[in-house]
């Protein structure tokens, strides 16, 4: 934070704004008689620069008034903490009951959000707990999706039989990626994982004989409920036929929704259990201090590999679900943008926080869908939200860490300032 006087600071900010806005806003291009003419707009620039000056001044004065450790934010945080015990059951109840009340579009959106919640929870193991920055998480999502699609296509097995295989193959690839990057940290790790994500996508794109290349794989079998298929007829062997219901596409949507809900909750449950056990605890210790871990006889290699493998395994499950939901996959679904979105969910939620991932996925995935009418301003709002987050909650929505084991019952949470973010 700058130590300059508020007035001078506001003046400098206004100067920067002038430099930015003068060409971008100050000169409007209009089509005239002899081609394009530049129409100057001095008043618009003046208004914007003035707004920046006033806002910056207000921010500085506000900062000067509050105590250094974010008292205002602390109040919001405490209000959240008071809600804490009710927030999780409320979210869970809402998630469980939603399909009974919602329309088809909302259920579709719910499936999408839950897929990202699951991916976020999976990546949270690698990034949030073990502190290894992974920019190529989409690779495991792709491996899971293609594993399921290819196994199902070639063996005729169904979703539930292929799911463990998809997870296992993704975990195997997690370990394969883990080995070469064990010695890398921070930026270097991020770059190599980024490259790994791209390699998987490019291989899928070019290995036409196996993956169908850019055409992808279609006709992927849909999931069944204990052998009952979801179709548009009520013949025997279908869900509608067995329960004597009128066949409806909603049934399959609701079924898919519950599958992803169960898979996501499984991810959450395993992560929460692992956190309270030696493996999860040592992941967090690794994030805090790798050298100290080594001095305590902990094998850093296997610890990192398990984090990659477990995280990748859940990515693989999510990928298999994605394949069975879409019925069609192609490399286009597994671009870097997906990795970035999932990582943004983890970081926005607050690294290591399970609840944070849910809130962040709702905001990141649900938000743009719910505010479709504002689509033109999406990037503007996104940028604004980024700045607001950086100022108010730079470490994410839920930043506290709950101890994995305590002696006293009412032990408090650990504030974010103590917690290391991991150096990769």
């Amino acid at each position, binding site marked *: 934070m700058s130590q300059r006087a508020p007035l001078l600071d506001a003046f400098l900010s206004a100067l920067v704004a002038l430099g930015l806005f003068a060409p971008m806003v100050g000169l409007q291009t209009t089509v005239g008689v002899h081609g394009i003419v530049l129409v100057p707009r001095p008043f618009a620039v003046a208004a914007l620069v003035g707004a920046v000056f006033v806002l910056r001044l207000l921010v500085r004065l506000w900062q000067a008034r509050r105590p250094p450790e974010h008292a205002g934010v602390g109040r919001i945080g405490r209000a959240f903490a008071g809600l804490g015990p009710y927030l999780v059951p409320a979210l869970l109840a809402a998630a469980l009951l939603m399909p009974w009340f919602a329309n088809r579009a909302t259920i579709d959106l719910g499936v999408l959000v839950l897929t990202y919640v699951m991916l976020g929870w999976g990546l949270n193991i690698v990034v949030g707990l073990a502190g290894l920055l992974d920019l190529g998480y989409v690779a495991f999502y792709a491996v899971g999706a293609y594993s399921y699609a290819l196994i199902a296509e070639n063996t005729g097995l169904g979703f539930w039989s292929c799911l463990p295989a998809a997870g296992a193959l993704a975990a195997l690839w997690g370990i394969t990626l883990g080995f070469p990057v064990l010695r890398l940290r921070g930026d270097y790790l991020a770059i190599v994982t980024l490259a790994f994500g791209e390699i998987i996508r490019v291989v899928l794109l070019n290995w036409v004989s196996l993956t169908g290349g850019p055409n992808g794989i279609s006709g992927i079998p849909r999931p069944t409920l204990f052998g009952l298929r979801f179709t548009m007829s009520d013949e025997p062997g279908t869900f509608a036929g067995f329960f004597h219901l009128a066949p409806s596409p909603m049934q399959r949507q609701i079924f898919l929704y519950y599958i992803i809900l169960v898979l996501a909750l499984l991810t959450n449950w*395993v992560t929460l*259990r*692992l956190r309270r*056990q*030696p*493996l999860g*605890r*040592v992941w*967090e*210790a690794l*994030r*805090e*201090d790798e*050298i*100290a*871990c*080594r*001095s*305590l*006889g*902990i*094998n*850093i290699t296997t610890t990192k590999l*398990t984090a990659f493998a477990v995280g990748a395994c859940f990515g693989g499950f999510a990928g298999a679900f994605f394949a069975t939901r879409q019925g069609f996959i192609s490399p286009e679904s597994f671009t870097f943008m997906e990795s970035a979105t999932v990582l943004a969910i983890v970081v926005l939620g607050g690294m290591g926080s399970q609840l944070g991932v849910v809130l962040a996925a709702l905001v990141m995935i649900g938000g743009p869908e719910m505010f479709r009418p504002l689509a033109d301003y999406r990037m503007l709002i996104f940028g604004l939200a980024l700045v607001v987050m950086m100022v108010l909650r730079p470490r994410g929505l839920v930043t506290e*860490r709950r*101890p*994995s*084991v*305590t*002696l*006293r019952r009412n*032990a*408090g949470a*650990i*504030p974010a300032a*103590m*917690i*290391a973010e991991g150096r990769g």
Partner: protein
Amino acid sequence: MAGQNLPELLEVRDLGLRFGGIVALAGVSFTARRGEITAIIGPNGAGKTTAFNCITGFYRPSAGDLDLTHSDGQRFALARMPGHLIARRAGVARTFQNIRLFAGMTVLENLLVAQHVPLMAATGLGVLAILGLGRYRAAERRAIDKAKAWLERIDLLARADDPAGALPYGAQRRLEIARAMCIDPVLLCLDEPAAGLNPSETAELGALLLRIREENCSVLLIEHDMDVVMRISDHIIVLDRGRKISDGTPAEIRADPHVIAAYLGEDDENADDVAHEALP
């Protein structure tokens, strides 16, 4: 004693380490005996921490041998072991000059991470423990009891659920020692444990180290606080510019003119003069 014909606990022979053209250690040999506190002293840059890093596996020496012998006769060539196995199998624990606690984890969690190896063995590759099966619960209870016992000894039981990073400096030093002791070491290596402590904390530290020695854990100590070193050490090794210049009991070291010369920055010629003057 049964260990009469056993080699010493730690034998360092001709230890050498160079970083490119810089010789950090050359031909350093010493022994650390079972049940003793051995101190390594020397001016800044003498190679003390480098020697420590070799012993604890953070550096691989370019020359020499490091042999550790347990009281049951098991031998370990530390110079050729992977870093984490030196702590796990050979039982060499260490602390760091700049404290390396898991600051964002609670005091209790810090001590449980130190017991990771036996705890992990009880989880059945992690799978059984997730399902709540197996003998993990009992193992965790034992680990917590052990951690509590240590917290009582270092007077931090009341702060067991606080983050380690929130402890005052002196308490962090004590916690780091307790964490190292939780791996049940045979040799505890402490890198400047008294740095930054006030006199009463230093006295407590000395008492703690003497108690640790009585419990059959030998101690290897780097320290600048000469009061502590002279009071609690059984044996002192003096390094200067990567070489050993003296070796003996505290009384011998105090009288050694080479040591005095090294600390006061006199050159060797003068040291020899001092040595001659010291002789009757």
